[in-house]
C-alpha cells in the first residue's frame, strides 16, 4: 500500500473538530442516504481504518463524488475528499477494481483508440443499442452525457499541422491540454492558443500524458502514479526554466498542482517544482491583467451568461478568475451560480448506480440556469465533464470561458466552435 508520511493526507484527520459543517454542505449526502456524509466516511471513519484489516470495513465511502465541497467549507482544513479517495484506493488495493471503473479511469486510452476512426467510434458508442448494452453489462448509465470523439482530428494533429503558422516570441508559455481537449474538444485548445498568441505569447505544447485524475478518483493509485511520474519527466524541465504551465482543464491542473502529489505522497524536488509552475489558464490570465498586460480589444457580446465555477476549480483556492476576466467583456450579463456541484464529478455521474444521484445533485445548478429566464442561449463552465452534464441537465449549449474570451477577441465562433477563418 502507499506510504503514509506526515506530509500525506492521513494526518489531516487530526484537524477535524467534528462540527459537521461539511456534512451539512455535502451535495451528495443531501440527496441520498447511501452516503453517510463527508465527516463520517472521512476523518471519522479514518480512525477505524488500518492497512491489512480482515476486510475493508466500509464501502459507503465509494459514494463520495470527490467534489471537494467539504474541503471548501471545512473551517479547520481537513483534507476530507482526499481521505475518502485514499480509503477508496485501499478498497481497490484489497479487492480489485471493476472493468467499468478501470475503463472510466482510462479516458486517454479510450480517446486514443476512438480517434483512429472517430465516426465509427461515435456510432459504436452512441447508438441506443450500445448504450443499453453498456448500461446492463458495464454499468455505465445509458442516459449519461458521454462525449463524442472529434471528427476533424485531434488537437495534437492540429498543432503539428499548423506549426509554421504559430507565433514565435520571447515570451513563452507552456500549454497543458489534457485528454478531453486532445481527443474530444480540440476547439478548446485552439481557443486557448488563439488567446495566448493574441496576447503575444509563444505557446509550447510539449509531449504530455493524462494527469491521472480519473484513476485517482477510481482508486487506481498505482497506475495514477505512473502517469504523474510521466508528466514530471516531461514537464519539469519547462518549470525549471521558469515557464508557466497553463491548462484549460481545471481538474487536470488541480491534479498536477495538488491532488497527485498529496494522494500519492509524491513530494520529490521534481514534483514540487512542477507543482509550483502549474496554473489554471484564467488564474494566469488574471495575473496578466493585474500586471496591465492583458489586451482589452474586446468586441461587444450581448448575452445573459449563467456561469458555474466547477468544484474542482474552486478547489484551486484562487477565487473565480474566469468570472473576473469575463466581466471585462462589454455586453455580457454574467450570472454567477452558487450551486455546489453539477453532479457529474468526473466519472461519478456516469455510473449506473450513481447517475440519478448525480442528476439530483445537479438540480440545484439546472434550476439556477432555468431561473435566469428565456434569454439564456448558453452557459459557461470551465470543466469539460461539468459542461457535458450542464448541457444534459439544461438542454442548453455550454462553453468554456476561454471560448467566450476568444470570441470577444474576434478570434472564435461560439456557434460553430471553431477559430474564425479556419
Amino acid at each position, binding site marked *: 500500500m502507499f506510504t503514509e508520511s*506526515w506530509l500525506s493526507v492521513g494526518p489531516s484527520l487530526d484537524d477535524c473538530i467534528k462540527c459537521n459543517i461539511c456534512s451539512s454542505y455535502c451535495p451528495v449526502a443531501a440527496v441520498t442516504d447511501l452516503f453517510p456524509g463527508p465527516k463520517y466516511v472521512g476523518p471519522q471513519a479514518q480512525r477505524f481504518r488500518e492497512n491489512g484489516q480482515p476486510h475493508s470495513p466500509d464501502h459507503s465511502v465509494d459514494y463520495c463524488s470527490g467534489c471537494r465541497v467539504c474541503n471548501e467549507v471545512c473551517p479547520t482544513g481537513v483534507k476530507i475528499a482526499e481521505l475518502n479517495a485514499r480509503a477508496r484506493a485501499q478498497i481497490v488495493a484489497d479487492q480489485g477494481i471493476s472493468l467499468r471503473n478501470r475503463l472510466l479511469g482510462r479516458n486517454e486510452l479510450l480517446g486514443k483508440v476512438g480517434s483512429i476512426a472517430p465516426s465509427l467510434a461515435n456510432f459504436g458508442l452512441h447508438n441506443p443499442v450500445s448504450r443499453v448494452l453498456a448500461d446492463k453489462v458495464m454499468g455505465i448509465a445509458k442516459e449519461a452525457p458521454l462525449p463524442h470523439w472529434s471528427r476533424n482530428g485531434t488537437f495534437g494533429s492540429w498543432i503539428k499541422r499548423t506549426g509554421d503558422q504559430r507565433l514565435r516570441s520571447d515570451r513563452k508559455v507552456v500549454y497543458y491540454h489534457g485528454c478531453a481537449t486532445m481527443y474530444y474538444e480540440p476547439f478548446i485548445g485552439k481557443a486557448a492558443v488563439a488567446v495566448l498568441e493574441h496576447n503575444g505569447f509563444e505557446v509550447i505544447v510539449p509531449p504530455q500524458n493524462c494527469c491521472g485524475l480519473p484513476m485517482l478518483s477510481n482508486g487506481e493509485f498505482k497506475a495514477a502514479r505512473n502517469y504523474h511520474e510521466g508528466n514530471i519527466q516531461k514537464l519539469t524541465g519547462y518549470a525549471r526554466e521558469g515557464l508557466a504551465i497553463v491548462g484549460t482543464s481545471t481538474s487536470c491542473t488541480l491534479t498536477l498542482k495538488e491532488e497527485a502529489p498529496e494522494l500519492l505522497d509524491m513530494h520529490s524536488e521534481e514534483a514540487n517544482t512542477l507543482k509550483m509552475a502549474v496554473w489554471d489558464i484564467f488564474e494566469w490570465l488574471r495575473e496578466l491583467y493585474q500586471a496591465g498586460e492583458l489586451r482589452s480589444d474586446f468586441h461587444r457580446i450581448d448575452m445573459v451568461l449563467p456561469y458555474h465555477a466547477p468544484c474542482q476549480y474552486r478547489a484551486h483556492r484562487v477565487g473565480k478568475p474566469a468570472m473576473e476576466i469575463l466581466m471585462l467583456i462589454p455586453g455580457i450579463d454574467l450570472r454567477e451560480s452558487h450551486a455546489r456541484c453539477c453532479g457529474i464529478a468526473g466519472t461519478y455521474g456516469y455510473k449506473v448506480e450513481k447517475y440519478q444521484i448525480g442528476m439530483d445533485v445537479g438540480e440545484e445548478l439546472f434550476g439556477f440556469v432555468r431561473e435566469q429566464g428565456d434569454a439564456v442561449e448558453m452557459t459557461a463552465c470551465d470543466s469539460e465533464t461539468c459542461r457535458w452534464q450542464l448541457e444534459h441537465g439544461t438542454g442548453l449549449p455550454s462553453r468554456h470561458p476561454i471560448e467566450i474570451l476568444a470570441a470577444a477577441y474576434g478570434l472564435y465562433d461560439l456557434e460553430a466552435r471553431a477559430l474564425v477563418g479556419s
Partner: protein
Amino acid sequence: MKHIETEILVIGGGATGTGVAWDAALRGFKTVLVEKRDLTHGTTGRYHGLLHSGGRYVVKDPQSARECIAENRILRRTHTHCLEETGGFFVVTPEDEGDFPDRFVAACAETGVPCNEITVAEALRREPLLNPRVSRVFEVPDGAADSFLATHATAQAARIAGAELFLYHEVVGLLVEGGEGECRVAGARVRDVANGEDVEIHAAMTISATGAWAGQLAKMAGIEVEIIPGKGTMVAMNHRLVNTVLNRCKMPADGDILVPIHTVSVIGTTDVRVTDPEHLRIEPWEVQFMLDEGDKLVPGLSKARVVRAWAGVRPLYQEGYTGASREATRQFTLLDHRERDGVAGLLTITGGKWTTFRLMAEKTVDKAVGHLGELKGCITANTPVPGVEQGFYWLGHRLHEVEAARLQGQLVCECELVTRSMLENAARNNPTVTLDDLRRDVRLGMGPCQGGFCTYRAVGILHEIGDQRSEIGAVDWNVAFLQSPAYNQDDEAGNRHLPLTIDNSPLAISSPNLLLRDFLQERWKGVTPILWGRQLKQERLDELIYLSLMNADHLPDDGGSSPLSEFYNFDTTPNENMDIPE
C-alpha cells in the same frame, strides 16, 4: 440495615477483584464483590491497554516475564474479544546503545518469550512512521487489551457462576472480631454511595483486591501494609499513529512505549511516587516528557494532535522497600494476614499487572481454599468468558457493523460510533450512576471531541429512560456484546425492548443536569493538561456549545451532588514528592 451472608467477600472491582470473584464463584463459593465506584474506576481503567508479551521484563524481572507470556497465551483463549492482535516491536533507537539488545535476545530465550528479529526495512514497511534511524527491531507477541470490556466480561462470567456484584458500594469499615492474637475479619460494612444506606456483609474470607488502596483498607483491620503508589501519566494521541505496540529496547523507563488501543495510540508512562492513590494530578513536565520520548519512537509525534492525558496509580508493594517506584518489583504480592499479622479471614492481593490478573486471582483463591478447607481446583484458564465467539477485536469492527446494519442514523457518539441502542442497553442493564460509567461501557465521549456532541444527546436519552431500568446487573443481559453496534439493535418494528420497570434510579440518573455537568467536568479534567493546538480548537468549540449556547454552568441541580463530584475538586497543592527526572 441490610445483612448479607457469604463465603467470600471480594473488595475491589478492577481486573483483579473481578478475576477473584469469577474464580471463586466457579469453584462453587458463595461470592460477593463490592466496588466503591464503577467497575474499572481505579487502576484497571486507567492503564495504557498493553497485553504484555513479557518482553518488557525479560532482562529486569524474568519471573514477571514468564508469568506474562503464560497469561498472554491464556487470555487469548479466555478473553479473545477483548484483545487485539497488534503484535509488538522492541526497537533500538540511536539513544539505546550498549549491550542491552543482545541481553534482551538472550533473556527472551531464557524466559520463553517468543522474539524474532526482523529487518528495519520490514519494520518500516509495516509501520511507516517508525523512526527510520532504528538499528534493530525485535518482534514479540504484545497485544492491545480493552480493560473495560475484559473486566465487564469477567464480571458477567462471575455473575453467571453465581457471584453477586455491588457497585457504588464503598467499604466504610471491616467487621473485626476477637482481641489480641485471636483477631479475625468477618466481613465488611459497606455504604451504598448512591442512596447513603449501609449494608453489612458477613464473610468467612475477605479478600482485598483494592490495589493502590490496599494500605488504606488494611488499616481498617489495624494492619500496616506499605503500598508504594506509583503514579503513571499517559497521553493519548488522536488517532492510531501505529498499529503495532512499539517498545524501546532498553531497561524499562519513562515514556518508552506506544500502544495502539482502539482508535488512539497511548504513550506511557511516567512513574512518580505519590502519597495518595487518589492524587492523580498531571504535571506539565510529565506530558512534555511523554511527547519528547514519543518523538524518539515516531519522529513528529509531538506535533500530532493529543486528545487527552490521564493518570493511574500502580499498586507497587515490596516488603520493607523505600526506593524509587520504577525500581520496585512488578511481581504481584499475596499477603496472608493470618500468617503475617495474626489477623485471620483477610487476604490482600496487590501489585502485578493487568496481564497477570487471572493468575493473581488463581493464587489468591488457592490460598482462600487452604483456609476454608475445601479443596477445589482452579478452572479459569480453560473457561472462556461470554463473548469469545466474536473472535479477536479489530480496529474496524464498529465501523463495519454500523455500515452492515445501516446504523449511521442511530449514532449518539459519532467519534466512537456508539449507537443509541448500545447506550440504552448499557444504561438499563448495567449499574449506571453517571455518564462516565457509560463511557467505560461503550466508549461514549472518548473520541476527538471529548463529549462535545454526545454529552447532551446521551443526557437526553437517559432522561427519557431514567425510570425504565431493569434489575441492575441482570445475568441474562449479554455484556459480551456491550460494544457491538450490530448486536445492540432495535427489533424490526423499531421497538426497544424495555425491561421491567424497577424504581431504583440512583440520584445522578434522576438528575440530567448533574449527569451533564459531571461528565463535562470529567472530560475536561483530562483535556486541561494538553490544552494547545488542535485540541484547544476543539475545546473552544465545546465551550461555545455548553457554556455559550446551553449555559451549562448555571444549570439548576436541585442542590444535589453526585457521588463523583469530589473527584472534580481540582487539587492545586504542589506535590511534595515530585521527583523530576534529571
